[in-house]
């Protein structure tokens, strides 16, 4: 811009206008005080103005440039904002309350399931068409309250999209006012954050569940948590209750505070090695309470592993088993007592057999010596009396042997094999026939095989067959029959004779030791045979019983569990 010439004379109207201009220039500070000082010379006024106007023009130019620049910046930041909103999938809307023109982003409508911008949108469309009915009331209230107070709003609600999907959104907005406080514009943002919301809900749910678990654990168990060095940093009420320590007495201590000294160093070392290697340790521990009493706890130690796969804390979950331990110890004591009694019995058995047999041997032996050396001076009655002495000594020897055999059975283990019972019965019959002379006919049927101890089952058959032969020996045609049948998962073997039988009212006495239903003069025997049979069969998991009628024979039965391999 060229400098203006200021050589024309001015009129008073001009002067007035000039004055206004002067003030204007002053206002925009394009005249400085030094220039003002020069203006005292009226002729120079015009020049000064011209200079001022020039300066003003320059300033204006700068200003225009500035404004252009800031508009550029504004446009730039607007597009940045748009990009940011889009990238964050945030929709927005903008309502001019003066002109009632509204603006929405495409994203806004997409949140509600539309592909393109709708021609029409209103608060009513939002509230009544898309907000979930259950959320509608509180959304409307929140929104209306914000408008009436002129404050910001924020809410989360479920929406039903146009494709009927239910989604979670959050909405935030603000009302703008002019200088007079009049509301002129509303601006709102919203975002579909269903995934985050669900994750949040899941998290809350699992936190709640964790809380529930913790509650259940605390209610039911004795719980302590220690750091990786074993320093206690949490104990629950049950822990305090059983250990009789206050919580503050335990926190910061390690478990040595309740150490009973009962367990070996190896035991403790093994425990620590296990959990330090990140493995769960289980066991039973004896602890000492504050008052010096002891308690037993079934303990599970669970190491919690960090990202370096090292335990950073241990959770100890315990249940009290003091009562059970007491019972176990009681049981152990009883077992020891039982073992002692058994041992005593064994040595008693030995001394019975040793100490009773020695004098018997002498009685029989010396009676025999008298018989040999003094038979000339003894008459027949003397000899008979001597024989009675010997007979009874021998009988007592047999009694002692039978009794010992019987007590032996109590200790013997059953060693089961697959036993051909027919073959065994035939062998037993031969054994019996060698020992006693008889004229009995013995019929052995096709017997089921058995899973049994061979030697013990042989003993059973020998005893039953010899019984059958013995008690039928006074019958004209003695007959013994051996059979077997399968009934209800068992094999039942029977040994039947046609001998003297017995009265069933005494059947309960049959299997007792030294119990006899016949006089010794009628039938020999010690009364141990059937007791042995019963003991053996019981050991095999079977049963023994008998059926008989006086003078009409007897049948002895025994059952054995079915032989699976058969």
């Amino acid at each position, binding site marked *: 811009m060229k400098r203006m010439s200021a050589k024309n004379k001015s009129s008073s109207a001009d002067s007035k206008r000039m004055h206004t201009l002067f003030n204007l220039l002053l206002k925009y500070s394009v005249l400085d005080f030094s220039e003002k000082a020069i203006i005292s010379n009226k002729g120079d006024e015009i020049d000064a103005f011209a200079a001022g106007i020039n300066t003003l023009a320059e300033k204006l130019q700068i200003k225009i440039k500035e404004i252009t620049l800031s508009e550029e910046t504004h446009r730039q930041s607007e597009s940045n904002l748009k990009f940011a909103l889009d990238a964050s999938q945030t929709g927005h809307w903008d309502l001019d309350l003066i002109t009632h023109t509204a603006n929405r982003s495409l994203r806004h409508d997409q949140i509600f399931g539309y592909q393109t911008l709708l021609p029409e949108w209103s608060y009513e469309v939002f509230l009544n068409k898309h907000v979930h009915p259950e959320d509608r009331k509180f959304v409307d209230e929140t929104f209306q309250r914000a408008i009436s107070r002129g404050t910001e709003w924020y809410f989360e609600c479920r929406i039903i999209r146009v494709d009927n999907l239910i989604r979670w959104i959050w909405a935030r907005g603000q009302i703008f006012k002019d200088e007079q406080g009049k509301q002129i514009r509303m601006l709102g943002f919203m975002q579909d954050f269903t995934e985050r919301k669900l994750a949040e809900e899941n998290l809350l749910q699992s936190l709640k569940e964790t809380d529930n678990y913790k509650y259940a654990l605390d209610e039911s168990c004795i719980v302590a948590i220690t750091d990786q060095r074993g320093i206690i940093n949490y104990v629950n009420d049950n822990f305090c209750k059983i250990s009789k320590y206050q919580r503050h007495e335990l926190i910061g201590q390690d478990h040595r505070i309740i150490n009973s000294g009962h367990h070996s160093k190896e035991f403790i070392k093994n425990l620590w090695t296990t959990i330090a290697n990140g493995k769960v340790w289980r066991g039973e521990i004896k602890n000492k309470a504050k008052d010096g009493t002891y308690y037993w706890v079934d303990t599970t130690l669970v190491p919690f592993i960090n990202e370096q796969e090292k335990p950073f804390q241990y959770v100890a979950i315990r249940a009290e088993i003091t009562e059970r331990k007491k019972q176990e110890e009681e049981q152990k004591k009883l077992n020891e007592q039982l073992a002692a009694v058994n041992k005593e019995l*064994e*040595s008693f*058995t*030995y001394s019975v*057999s*040793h*100490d009773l*047999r*020695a004098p*018997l*041997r*002498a009685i*029989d*032996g*010396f*009676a*025999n*010596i008298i018989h040999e050396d003094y038979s000339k001076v003894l008459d027949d009655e003397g000899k008979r009396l001597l024989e009675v002495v*010997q007979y009874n*000594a*021998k009988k007592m*020897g047999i009694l002692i042997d039978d009794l*010992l055999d019987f007590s032996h059975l109590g200790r013997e283990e059953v060693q089961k094999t697959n036993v051909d019972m027919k073959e065994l019965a035939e062998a037993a019959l031969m054994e019996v026939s060698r020992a006693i002379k008889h004229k009995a006919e013995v019929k052995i049927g096709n017997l089921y095989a058995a899973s049994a101890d061979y030697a013990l089952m042989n003993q059973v058959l020998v005893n039953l067959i010899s019984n059958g032969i013995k008690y039928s020996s006074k019958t004209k045609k003695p007959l013994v029959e051996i059979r077997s049948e399968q009934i209800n998962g068992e094999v039942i073997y029977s040994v039947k004779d046609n001998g003297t039988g017995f009265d069933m009212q005494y059947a309960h006495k049959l299997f007792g030791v030294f119990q006899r239903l016949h006089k010794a003069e009628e039938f020999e025997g010690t009364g141990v045979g059937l007791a042995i049979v019963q003991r053996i069969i019981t050991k095999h998991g079977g049963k023994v019983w008998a059926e008989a009628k006086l003078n009409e024979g007897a049948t002895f039965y025994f059952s054995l569990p079915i032989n699976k391999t058969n």
Partner: protein
Amino acid sequence: MKNRQVEILLIEDSAHDAEMTIRALRKHNFANKVTHLGDGDEALDFIFGTGKYAERNISNNPIVILLDLKMPKVDGIEVLRKVKSDQRTKTIPVVVLTSSKEDPDVKTCYELGVNSYIVKPVGFDNFTDAIKELGSYWLLLNTHTK
């Protein structure tokens, strides 16, 4: 007597059992070679030539020792242990005689190297039979070390 060849050494505390054993042996003509000792202590002195048997020539080992287990003071197990652990005597056959097969010492006897183990039967006939068989086996059949 001190240096007489001893064929059967009977170590038995029961006088009655000893009497019957000797009688049974005599019946079968083994009796003149029997020496009977009544307790383990004396038996050890005899076998190893100590105490009152200090002058006995112990190279005259008995051909067989019949040994009762249950004896006061030094019992049969102790005698057996000493005999079987000494180089001079460990080849002497030892037959243990006892009243009962229930004897808890049976296992110990076998561990110590007993040669035979016999339960004395109650019946006199059985008893003499057992003694006879024993005598025949060890004195007549068995080839003993000289």
